[in-house]
């Protein structure tokens, strides 16, 4: 299977000189469609830096990143938004919804960026909200939604651009147990049923139940990479 994102010998250094801090140090990683990949590791290990670079919103210091076979590290600032728009969908820990827009308008905005005609936008945004179980919340504002509902709106928005990759940064961190499970189940279905590549940055051990692959990152390097079933077994053993 061809990876949708291929990262090779990636480094990222913040600042320069004595203050320089290396966040990533020679990372190689492939992300595949139909898989839920977990990026796990302690705070400051480089998970978020890695997902930012894979999402084409942060430039690496060196190394290669290919998205759908295209090298993106040398693309200009003007070219990168088109890559994000075409291939990436983001789900954030803090939801990052637009508080002045309704749920359906939040989803529509992603379609507007893709220049989908106005009438079609409303229809497709409504269908996506229905898909994530928010049939009755189209006109609700984010302030009137629970954390789980907000994250589902965020997932619908991420899906609106029909991306190849969903990058989710701590998607369950702000959610209660039930909402967290709903969101993770939704992300798993996106990978297994819809063929997306789903990357989840997390500390949350509950996430293991929904993952196919676990990548441990420590000190800017990939410390271990294994099948999630094996990880679940180890966690159970430790338990």
């Amino acid at each position, binding site marked *: 299977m061809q990876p949708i994102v291929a990262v090779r010998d990636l480094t990222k250094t913040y600042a320069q000189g004595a203050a320089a801090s290396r966040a990533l140090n020679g990372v190689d990683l492939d992300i595949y469609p139909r898989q839920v990949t977990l990026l796990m590791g302690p705070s400051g290990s480089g998970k978020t830096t890695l997902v*930012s670079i894979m999402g084409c*919103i942060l430039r690496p210091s060196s190394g290669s990143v290919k998205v759908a076979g295209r090298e993106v590290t040398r693309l200009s600032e003007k070219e990168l*938004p088109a*890559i994000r728009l075409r291939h990436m969908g*983001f789900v*954030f820990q803090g939801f*990052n919804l637009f508080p002045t827009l309704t749920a359906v308008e939040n989803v529509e*905005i992603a379609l507007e*960026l893709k220049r989908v005609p106005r009438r079609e936008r409303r229809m497709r945004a409504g269908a996506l909200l229905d898909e994530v179980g928010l049939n009755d919340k189209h006109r609700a504002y984010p302030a009137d939604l629970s954390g789980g509902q907000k994250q589902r709106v965020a997932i619908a928005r991420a899906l609106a*651009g029909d991306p190849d990759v969903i990058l989710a940064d701590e998607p369950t961190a702000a959610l209660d147990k039930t909402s967290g499970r709903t969101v993770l189940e939704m992300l798993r279905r996106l990978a297994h049923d819809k063929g997306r590549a789903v990357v989840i940055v997390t500390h949350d051990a509950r996430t293991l139940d929904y993952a196919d692959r676990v990548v441990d990152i420590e000190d800017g390097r990939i410390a271990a990479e294994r099948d999630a079933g094996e990880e679940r077994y180890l966690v159970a053993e430790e338990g």
Partner: protein
Amino acid sequence: MASLAVRNLFHDRVRLVVTLTGIVFAVVLVAVQIGLFIGFTTTTSNVIDNSGADFWVVARGVGYLEVATPFSEKNLYHARATPGVADAQKFIVRFSVWKQADGSQRNCEVVGLDPDSSMGRPWKVVEGDVRDLKLPGTVIVDRFYGPKLGVSRVGDTVEIRGVRARVVGFTDGIRTFTTSPLAFTSFKSAQRYGPVDDDKTVFLLIKAAPGWNLERVRAGLKARLTDVDVYTAREFSGMTTRYWMFGTGAGVTVILAAILGLLVGIVVVAQTIYAATIDHIREFGTLKAMGATNGYIYRIILRQAAISAAIGYGVGIVVAILAEHSSRHGGANIVLPVPVRAALFGLTLAMCVSAAVVSIDKVTKIDPAMVFRG
């Protein structure tokens, strides 16, 4: 995009009110100052602009209307004999002293004209008849200045430079920049009120015959008349306006106040739009992460600036028009013609858009990776 721009703008009502107040303040200040400037320029030269003359003949070296010195009236006959001249009349504008029945005095500007001529007549006459000025010692004044001059009706009598004068009519809406009211009277009476010597005049008003080239007529006048300058009405009007507006500094003050209003508007609007941008910076970061270009986000900010401009202008121009109407009953003359109102909208839009530039600069520097931070 439209809805995000509008929703974000109207979301924080307090900030919107502050923004709109700043714009309204700037619009009213600029409109009133420009209106005053136009009003001043209109009043400084209204006697010339309403004279109906093609040329004004003045003593050599005279720079503006109010300081003209008398010259020999022989020039009148030479002027009438000049080819292309349809009519030539003597005319006087002189400062004088108006003494009310109760003995109090104030300055006035005596305007001496030929009541049978079509040139130099008072305009906006609302009571009485210009032909009544044929009677010696009669005047027409503006209603607005009536209380200041101590007259309220036809038949009231006063003294001008010690000579009796009877009011035979009123105009309505003729202001003066010098605040000395105009007292229209016959040329003969004006010679006494001026005073101006019997064989002299202060101006000659010239009407060219239809079909004649004005420059040819002027060349003929210059060749025949002595010790005088010949100006078209437009030239002399411009000279008089420039003197009062720029020679005295009055116009510069008004223009500076208008510029100040504009700057205050830009600063207030820039500050509020910038604060709003900072408040929504994370949303703009999210948009960038989602694939929005800088141009897309600029358009949101510019749309907000344009909407603010439209609302602020709408309210501001209504206030300015009310001020214009109320100025008709007050001392200051505010004039806001429709083209000026339209230009003000362009100015308001430019003000708001330029105020948004600071925010645009901020958005350009947003790091989309910020969306992953907490």
